[in-house]
Each structure stands twice: as structure tokens, then as C-alpha cells.
């Protein structure tokens, strides 16, 4: 009864919350969950030290959508922004929601 999906986690500076959310949805994700986060990474160059840390966005999507999102990150986020992302396998119950 469980179906396979991909979980993408993206950590990015908080100023990009709106933009990333929109971009993710236009790539075909049907939903996402965001928590506020802090962190450290190899780049660690950052605007808005004042404007609060990172966001951690996670979205459960079919594999083909996950590839589109990764492509998006590669072209529009990784080059300029403090951004981390990873993908893993998850399983879900309600197929039509993800």
C-alpha cells in the first residue's frame, strides 16, 4: 500500500523563502513544509545576518519532479546563494497527494 517518492530537503538563506516556495510549486511539487533553521556551511557568506538565518524546506515529490527541482537549484540557487540540498527515498500512503 505504500508508494515510493523522493524527499528533497533544501536549506537556503531566509530571504529566499517566497521565491523558493514559488519556484518549487511551478516545478510541479504539490506541497512543502518549511522550518526555520540556522547552520554553517563551506561557503558561509551571507546577506541579512540581520534577517534571520536559513529556512529548511522539504518536499515530497515523484522522482521526475525531484529532478526538475534539482535542476532549478543547480541553475538558480547554487551559484549565488548559501544553499544546501539533499534527496532521499521515502514512502507515502496517499498517492494522489504527492
Amino acid at each position, binding site marked *: 500500500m505504500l508508494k515510493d517518492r523522493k524527499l528533497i530537503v533544501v536549506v537556503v538563506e531566509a*530571504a529566499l523563502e517566497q521565491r523558493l516556495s514559488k519556484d518549487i510549486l511551478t516545478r510541479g511539487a504539490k506541497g512543502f513544509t518549511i522550518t526555520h533553521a540556522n547552520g554553517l556551511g563551506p561557503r558561509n557568506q551571507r546577506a541579512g*545576518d540581520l*534577517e534571520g538565518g536559513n529556512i529548511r524546506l522539504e518536499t515530497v515529490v515523484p522522482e521526475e519532479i525531484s529532478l526538475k527541482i534539482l535542476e532549478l537549484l543547480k541553475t538558480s540557487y547554487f551559484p549565488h546563494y548559501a544553499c544546501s540540498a539533499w534527496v532521499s527515498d521515502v514512502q507515502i500512503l496517499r498517492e494522489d497527494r504527492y
Partner: protein
Amino acid sequence: MDILSVAVQNLTSAPVLAFALGLLAAAIKTDLRLPEPIYQAISIYLLLGIGIKGGVALSNAEFQEVGLPILGTLLLGLTVPVLAFFLLKLLKKLSVVDRGALAAHYGSTSLVTFTAAVIFYESVSISVEGYLTTLLAILEIPGIIVGLMLASRGLRREVSWGESFREILTGRSIFLLAGGLVIGFLTKSTGFAGIEFFFVALFPGVLTLFLLELGIVAGRRLKDLKKAGIGLVVFGIVFPLLSGTLGVMTGHLTGLGIGGAATLGVLSASASYIAAPAAVRLALPEASPGIYLTASLGITFPFNLTLGIPIMLEISKFLESAGL
């Protein structure tokens, strides 16, 4: 009061001392921070409160009194970033994009510097026209836009101006300031009486807490000073003196009093570290925050807070006595 004792009184005011304490906290690496939601709430409080106060003042002012200063401020908002952009050519290492980003910051203005100036001037019995807040709101935006446009000459890609403008204009700073102005204008002194306590009496104390946090953030920037180079440090101190003097002159020429002209000088001298970085980060990711945040928050902000505020007052007094 002579200039030295004014400077000392500013340096030993609670907000400035709290800022210094924040610098120290960063230097000895305590884990002290104002929690993020508190920081956000205080920003909202400061912006809305300043807006409302300005609006009440505006409702008591005559139009002819305000017209000229507004015009002068608009001019400042367009001139200062262009000036910054071209003077920065002297710093050979900087890319066009970084120069534009810096221009956006120095063309815009800093709410906290403004507030500290007004509180300080009034504590030494120099009155400041209430509608200076209107000028603050007016000076916030144009400089950012001019800076972004100048920077775009250095970009090899298309810039989506539409999206950028939308993000700048719906940003919370300008929205709360302008919204506060309207609230204050409509509610007038009568309506303001009930909330005066919250927005006036508490103000200096809240600002003290806020400056503690800004000190911590600025302190963390200091470690980037070395990377930034001596040229940037010099710019961060000398340029505000230049743009500040321009501001004071504009104030006197458009009819402001000693305190008002000095405050317009502070506005012009100050560099944004909230609205501008947010806008620049989104529209100009190629620009280096290590440069523009370090300059505006790490150099110019502390300089203005401690020395710029009394210096602008002296310049204003001098121009007044010179009969300008």
C-alpha cells in the same frame, strides 16, 4: 554646550553604550543574541511608531512648510547614490556590481541612526521638526533603485525589474513607515494620546535593547574588515561626512531648523542595513554581502552613531551661524 561635551554625552548615552556592549559580546564570543522574533517585533514597533509619530506631526504642519524639504530630500536620494557609485571607482578592487550595491546602501538610510539622532538632539534641547519622519520614508527607497540600476550595467544577464520593484515596494520597512504615517495623519494628536505611552515613553528603552543586538551583529562583521581592505574603511567614514554635509545643506536651504537640518544630514549620511541588503540580496546576488554589509553595518553605522550625530549638529550650527 561645546562640541566635546556633546560628543561625550552622546557616547555615554544608554543606546550607544548598549551598542558597545554588543560589540564586546561579539568580540568575546558570548552566545548572547536577541531572539529572532523579538528582533522582528522590535523592528515593526520602531517602524510603525516612527511612522505614526511622523504622521501626527504632519497633520499639524502646513503644506508649504513641508513641500520644499520633501523636494530637497528626493534630490538627495537621487544624487547620493550616484556620487557614491562614482567615488567608489577609486577603489580599484571593486566590481561594478559591488559599487552599485554599495551605492544602493548609502543612497538609502538607516532608521536606527535616525532615531538615535532625534532622541539625542532632543536630550540636548535641540528640537527636530516632527515631519522629518516623512523625509526618512522618502529617502528609503530611491537610493536603492538608483543603486540597483547603476549595478546592472555590470551584469551580463537581464534583470527582472518588475519583480525587484515589487519586492522593494512591498518590503516591510517602507510599508510600515508609510502606513504609520497615514495612521498618524488620520488619528491626529487626539487619537495618538492613548498610544503615546507605548510608542513614545518606551521608545528609548526599546532602542537600547535593539542596539545591543545590532552591536552583536556589527561586531561579527568586524572580522571581515581585514578582507574588506583599508579603502573600504576610509570610504565608510569619509563618504558619510560628505553626504551628510550635503544633507545638512539641503536642510538649511529648504527651510529646516538647526535640529531638522542636522537630522537630514544624519539621514543622508547613514547607510541602510535592513531594506537595502534585503533588496540587493534578491536582485543582485552577484554582489558580495561581505563588502556591502561590512561597510554599512560594520563601519558607517558605528561611526554615525558615535561621531556622526554630534558632527552633523556642529555642521548645522556652523551653517546657521554662517547665515545659510
